[in-house]
């Protein structure tokens, strides 16, 4: 759809745009009736018309038509990509006709073009008009259907109808890809992909073709080549080619890789190229690589270069969509219904008048609004008479949509933190004739204090805007880790206050819709997962029947399985802004009390897990065997230097030791001298001697401190490697599991759940061994500490089923704990959460976890641990 706006695409003659539009439906139909294709040709009314024209046409044309018809004989998938390719060259180049649109392929179109060619002038226009009329009748018939009763879609009878055109395209492409993979003809696939993704590179098809002919393998450029490249002016075309080749290799790594080159090298080159070609910063590309597989990433980046279609929403408070469409068409606007999922949306293809300043716009008959921002309101589905809160309402598109769904009944509280942006809310609300709103200017985080008890809340959280790069390309370079973290933090605060503003007891509601225009996992799934842990809410289906499922696992993070109910929308697969929608239901007004320690650790976790994002992490999972090899290789690489470093440290320590020994000898001799001559020496001499001894001692102490320092350093060095091993193990395990899931059926979730549970305790330990290294207490001798590490590790492996009391696994999960931190309590674990001290001063344990002794709050008066209280009873 976005392509329609492209001025380079303008069709100069032949059937008009709308006629072409209709082809989409026709070809869809043709697809379903594919079996009949070989049989006698069915004639539609238009086809008959054309047949009449054809009879007037010359023989030559007939022949051409026939050849086309024979081409149509392909019944398998190949027909689709074979044909446009064939057609493209002769037709395109000779006539300068419109390009590679695969949707408009069948022979009828060609004939039509020919017919139009032949008749020129008058006839041409007639044809055009006819088409237009047909189009309108068809279209609005369909619209009527949808507005009268959505249920009877059986009449349309095709699931294709329910999909957006772009989705259809995506599906088609996917099918094609599968077919291609069987033939292992990746290059062709690439070409097809390109045809879909943008016309601007159409001329490069030839180069791809050439590439195949040569059977030239993609080679990684060496370091010096790259350096040279830095000096030369950038050749975007060659970079683009390299990206494509690289993706090709990466998606077929086992067979296409160059010997001795690692995946990481390919990936780093790809990253660099993507950054140059699409002008993103490295951070964002890395983030996106984590979210998308490589080939999809290219589609995504490509889609970000194209504007999304302009869409408007009918204000049903003032008009009907059909009337509005008619009025706008009369003003010279070319439009279409948005899709079956929306009864109020219209897509604007082009317009001779500014669409944001027509009298209809000013009269409030419609609102300029992205397709994606209709979704959260549809998910929220506010009912008449409810009280609804829109936490960040500017510029009022969603607010007014809610009002129109509620037919101006009930109350909407439209809030926004920015007073400036609220002006547009006021304008839009009055323009669209919405009367049931209260507009206020609070910080959303204060909200439950202002008023609560809402039936529904919509939280369109402020975000990094990574889903709307096509609107604001500044995002490409302006965002970094800190920005994401900052907005994620704000979002977490907002979602909690949004939940607190809800009334769980509401008869009709108690729903929260959380949405962002970001595609970052940190700002979406993570935030929702956080809310699930912190409040009595659960995820419910959004009621949107398209969009991709939210992530339940992402890199090393595991989210609640119900996050599958959330929806993600991408520019490349849905042709709307990148968007995330989650619908939550609050089932209890009580706020679960969390142990004080937990909040602190929750905040710590993101920083901990975020920083070590190793570049070797690749979104397309390699073969498990290869992955194992890769991990091992990396690990061995990193550990290579360890012995030398250890040796150096120990050498230093030994030196220090030697020096201390020497000093001690000196001190001894001095002391002997002192004791021997103590009587004869004057007080001053005594004092100087004593001072000397003292100095030597302090020096001794310094050496000792240094030694301790060194030991700690050594310990940390080893610990670092252990931690690395742990994370690698965890990641590898996750990879393996993924492989397993892929290989088995996807919906065998129950076994998956079990698996993750069984993995639970181990992961805990793994996590616990991390961190708090910094504040490790140096009570024990550091050398001992090192031994202890090993001891603890072996101990853990021997007894893997250590019980953590009744603490929720997620609480301790990822909590990094130093291995030689002292242990407490009956369960012999380190301290976490709230602890209580036994009031028996001789107690052997002293400190206990609340959970282990069955406490939730601190008891009044004296408290004795179970053991001590038993002993006291005996006494």
């Amino acid at each position, binding site marked *: 759809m976005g392509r329609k706006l492209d001025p380079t695409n303008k069709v100069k003659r032949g059937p008009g745009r709308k006629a072409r539009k209709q082809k989409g439906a026709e070809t869809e139909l043709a697809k379903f009736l594919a079996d009949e294709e070989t049989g006698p040709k069915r004639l539609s009314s238009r086809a008959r018309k054309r047949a009449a024209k054809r009879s007037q046409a010359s023989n030559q044309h007939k022949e051409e038509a026939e050849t086309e018809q024979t081409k149509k004989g392909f019944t398998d998938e190949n027909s689709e990509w074979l044909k446009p390719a064939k057609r493209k060259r002769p037709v395109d180049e000779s006539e300068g006709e419109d390009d590679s649109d695969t949707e408009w392929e069948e022979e009828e179109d060609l004939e039509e073009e020919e017919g139009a060619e032949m008749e020129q002038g008058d006839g041409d226009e007639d044809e055009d008009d006819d088409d237009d009329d047909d189009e309108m009748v068809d279209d609005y018939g369909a619209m009527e259907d949808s507005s009268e009763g959505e249920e009877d879609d059986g009449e349309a009878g095709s699931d294709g109808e329910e999909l957006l055109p772009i989705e259809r395209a995506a599906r088609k492409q996917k099918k094609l890809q599968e077919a291609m993979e069987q033939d292992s003809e990746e290059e062709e696939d690439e070409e097809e992909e390109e045809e879909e993704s943008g016309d601007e590179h159409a001329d490069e098809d030839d180069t791809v073709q050439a590439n195949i002919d040569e059977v030239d393998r993609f080679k990684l450029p060496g370091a010096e080549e790259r350096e040279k490249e830095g000096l030369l002016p950038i050749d975007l075309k060659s970079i683009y080619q390299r990206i494509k080749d690289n993706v090709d290799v990466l998606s077929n790594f086992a067979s296409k890789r160059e010997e001795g080159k690692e995946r990481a090298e390919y990936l780093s080159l790809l990253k660099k190229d993507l950054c140059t070609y699409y002008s993103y910063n490295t951070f964002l590309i890395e983030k996106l690589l984590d979210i998308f597989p490589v080939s999809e990433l290219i589609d995504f980046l490509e889609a970000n270069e194209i504007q999304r279609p302009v869409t408007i929403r009918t204000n049903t408070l003032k008009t009907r969509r059909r009337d509005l469409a008619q*009025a706008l068409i009369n003003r010279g606007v070319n439009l279409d219904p948005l899709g079956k999922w929306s009864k109020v949306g219209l897509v604007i293809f082009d317009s001779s008048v500014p669409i*944001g*300043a027509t*009298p*209809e716009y*000013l*009269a*409030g*008959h419609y609102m300029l609004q992205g397709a994606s921002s209709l979704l959260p309101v549809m998910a929220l589905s506010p009912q008449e008479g409810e*009280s609804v809160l829109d936490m960040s309402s500017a510029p009022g598109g969603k607010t007014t949509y809610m009002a129109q769904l509620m037919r101006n009944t009930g*109350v909407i*509280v439209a809030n926004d933190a920015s*007073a400036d942006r*609220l*002006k*547009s*809310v*006021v*304008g839009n*609300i*009055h*323009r669209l*004739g919405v*009367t*049931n*709103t*209260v*507009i*206020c*200017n*609070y910080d959303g985080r204060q909200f439950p204090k*202002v*008023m609560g008890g809402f039936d529904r809340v919509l939280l369109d959280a402020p975000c990094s805007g990574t889903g709307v790069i096509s609107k604001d390309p500044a995002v490409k370079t302006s965002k970094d880790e800190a920005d994401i973290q900052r907005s994620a933090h704000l979002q977490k605060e907002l979602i909690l206050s949004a939940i607190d503003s809800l009334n769980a007891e509401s008869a009709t509601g108690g729903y929260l819709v959380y949405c962002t225009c970001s595609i970052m996992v940190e700002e979406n799934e993570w935030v929702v997962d956080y809310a699930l842990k912190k409040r009595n809410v659960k995820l419910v289906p959004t009621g949107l029947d398209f969009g991709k499922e939210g992530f339940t696992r992402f890199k090393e993070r595991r989210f609640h399985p119900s996050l599958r109910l959330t929806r993600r929308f991408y520019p490349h697969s849905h042709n709307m802004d990148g968007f995330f929608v989650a619908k939550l239901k609050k089932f209890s007004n009580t706020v679960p009390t969390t142990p004080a320690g937990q909040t602190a650790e929750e905040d710590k976790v993101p920083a901990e897990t975020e920083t070590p994002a190793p570049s070797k992490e690749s979104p397309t999972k390699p073969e498990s065997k290869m992955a194992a090899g890769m991990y091992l290789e990396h690990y061995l690489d990193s550990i290579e230097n360890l012995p030398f470093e250890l040796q150096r440290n120990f050498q230093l320590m030994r030196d220090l030791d030697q020096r201390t020994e020497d000093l001690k000898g000196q001190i001894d001799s001095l002391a002997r001298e002192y004791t021997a001559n103590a009587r004869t020496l004057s007080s001053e001499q005594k004092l100087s001697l004593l001072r000397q001894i003292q100095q030597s001692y302090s020096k001794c102490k310094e050496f000792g401190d240094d030694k301790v320092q060194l030991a700690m350093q050594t310990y940390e060095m080893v610990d670092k490697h252990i931690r690395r091993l742990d994370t690698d193990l965890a990641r590898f395990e996750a990879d393996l599991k993924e492989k397993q899931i892929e290989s088995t059926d996807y919906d065998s979730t129950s076994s998956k759940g079990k698996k993750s549970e069984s993995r639970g305790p181990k992961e805990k330990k793994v996590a616990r061994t991390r961190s708090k290294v910094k504040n490790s207490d140096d009570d024990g001798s550091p050398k001992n500490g090192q031994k202890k590490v090993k001891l603890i590790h072996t101990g853990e492996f021997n007894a893997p089923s250590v019980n953590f009391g009744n603490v929720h696994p997620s609480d301790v999960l990822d909590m990094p704990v130093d291995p030689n931190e002292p242990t407490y309590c009956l369960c012999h674990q380190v301290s976490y959460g709230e602890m209580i001290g036994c009031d028996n001063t001789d107690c052997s344990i002293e400190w206990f976890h609340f959970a282990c002794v069955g406490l939730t709050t601190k008891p009044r008066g004296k408290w004795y641990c179970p053991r001590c209280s038993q002993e006291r009873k005996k006494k």
Partner: protein
Amino acid sequence: MRPLTDDETKTMFEKLSKYIGENIKLLVDRPDGTYCFRLHNDRVYYISEKILKLATNISREKLVSVGTCFGKFTKTQKFRLHITALDYLAPYAKFKVWVKPGAEQSFLYGNHVLKSGLGRITENTAQYQGVVVYSMADVPLGFGVAAKSTQECRRVDPMSIVVFHQADIGEYIRSEDTLT
């Protein structure tokens, strides 16, 4: 936010009655609930009692708008109707003026309506009578004051003004910032 004083009510109703006459009472006594006028930041809002109750939760400085804004009191205590009141003026208007499609745009840019752009006018419109301006498709575009009576309109030359512009829906774009 407070109820209007008697003086304020009087000035405002006088102004409103220029456009909708005795239909004002339809605004005050509505079958679908109690509605009232409230003053906030010199602006008059027309709200249902139910929403009003909720709005009292919000502190004065944080409240931006509630219900529908009808207009504002100037510093000299005159009342000025805003375009936002059009939704309530248009259905009850006593005198209407329709402008031709060609003149729509001109009116929406804030110009007066000329004889040449006049499509239709209610019979018996007096001079200086408040009128609501419609497009030929019956979309309310704004309101103003008749510069000439209906009779006079028939005679005047095409370039003379027939309706003085007061407010038009183009203001939603032109002066979004001053609407509230």
